[in-house]
């Protein structure tokens, strides 16, 4: 019988400090920011009047994606001034997600709660500030009681809306990103572990070793899938941010 001992989750996400108070999450976060900066720095230095190729093409694709598929779809033309913020969010989250499939790093920084929490709180502060700036103190009443709510329903709706806007939105933003990336990481570990255990099993049942190809294929498939998940989570976080900012600007809608 083959006994497989799966390590506790705490051990799987244990990252020792590279130096004082700087672990792999710090490395990935700093690298994500640096890569993002370098890409846009190099892209900006290329001749803009010729057809874009390489890094400039990549950067312009990112800008067009944010503008056309996120801002214009959720906020309209007025929201284009939010492109730098949304672009930074998308680039940072995606580059923090990608190390989940990179050898050596092998874990997304967003699979730890710190970065999703910080980003969600930032978004929370931003959209509430935008709401207050656009609507003044009336923002709070508009947020609590959308137009058309019957007077009798106001206490209940107000409670739900306040809870939704103040607590649930940032919480769901952070947890959605964190949980998806951690779950993906756990899946990759599970199939990697199973492949390793089957291939190196000390057993007389020879059928077990060839069977290690099955979890290995699953591992390869899930690795490719994690690229998609990383992109999708960055997209969802960014588009929800745009939706929340737009909703704060026009709470009457």
């Amino acid at each position: 019988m083959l006994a497989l001992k799966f390590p506790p989750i705490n051990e799987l996400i244990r990252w020792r400090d590279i130096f004082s108070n700087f672990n792999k999450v710090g490395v990935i976060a700093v690298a994500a920011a640096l890569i993002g900066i370098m890409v846009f720095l190099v892209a900006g230095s290329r001749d803009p009047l010729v057809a874009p190729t390489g890094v400039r093409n990549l950067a312009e694709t990112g800008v067009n994606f944010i503008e056309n598929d996120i801002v214009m779809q959720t906020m309209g033309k007025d929201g284009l001034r939010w492109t730098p913020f949304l672009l930074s969010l998308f680039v940072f989250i995606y580059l923090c997600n990608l190390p989940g499939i990179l050898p050596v790093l092998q874990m997304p920084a967003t699979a730890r709660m710190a970065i999703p929490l910080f980003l969600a709180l930032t978004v929370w502060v931003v959209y509430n500030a935008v709401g207050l700036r656009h609507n003044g103190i009336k923002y709070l009443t508009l947020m609590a009681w959308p137009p058309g709510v019957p007077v009798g329903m106001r206490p209940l709706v107000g409670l739900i809306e306040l809870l939704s806007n103040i607590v649930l939105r940032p919480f769901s933003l952070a947890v959605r990103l964190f949980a998806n990336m951690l779950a993906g990481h756990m899946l990759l570990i599970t199939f990697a572990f199973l492949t390793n255990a089957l291939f190196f099993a000390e057993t007389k049942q020879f059928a077990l070793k060839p069977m290690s190809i099955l979890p290995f294929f699953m591992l390869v498939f899930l690795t490719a899938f994690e690229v998609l998940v990383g992109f999708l989570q960055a997209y969802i976080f960014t588009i929800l941010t745009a939706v929340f900012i737009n909703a704060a600007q026009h709470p009457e809608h």
Partner: protein
Amino acid sequence: MFTVTVTSTTTGASRAWVVQTAPIEGEAETVAEDKGPSPIAPEVKELAWGAGAFIVLFLLMRVVLFPRLKKGMDARYGKIRGDHEGADATRAAARAEVAEYEAEIAAVKAQAAQRIEAARNVLEDERTAALAELKARVGTQRAAATAANEAARAAAEQHVSTAVADVSSRAAELATGKRPKAADVTNIVASLMGGSQ
């Protein structure tokens, strides 16, 4: 670090080896602390590094990176738009020239058709006149031929009736010994030849 103690115990006929492990004093706490971080609770150092990295990226993106890239994109889009407008103007001018050329071609074709029609009419008149003249000449020649033919036929008939009358008179003379009157014979022959025609 652990210490390993191996003891041997004998129970009946069998002997078993018992392996016991125990942590070295003072290291038990270290082992307990090294279970790894909480999977849910955020760590302050990760929060700080993440926040710092994102804020730097956002500020640079807001102030330098995005405006420079966007300015370049807008310049290129403007140039492309200008090129498109220029191309549209050139296309419109080319279409106007083509229309003008086609109008000229149509005028020339109409003129040519007019001239061809006039020439065809002239030819038709000439053909009709030539045909009428030819028909008149043929009619005249046919009438002359018919008259000559009638005259020849009349002469031939006269010759034949004379010859028949002579032969008939001679035959009657030989048969009867008396020569009939020439006028009678001629009348008879003429009536017979006229009846046989």
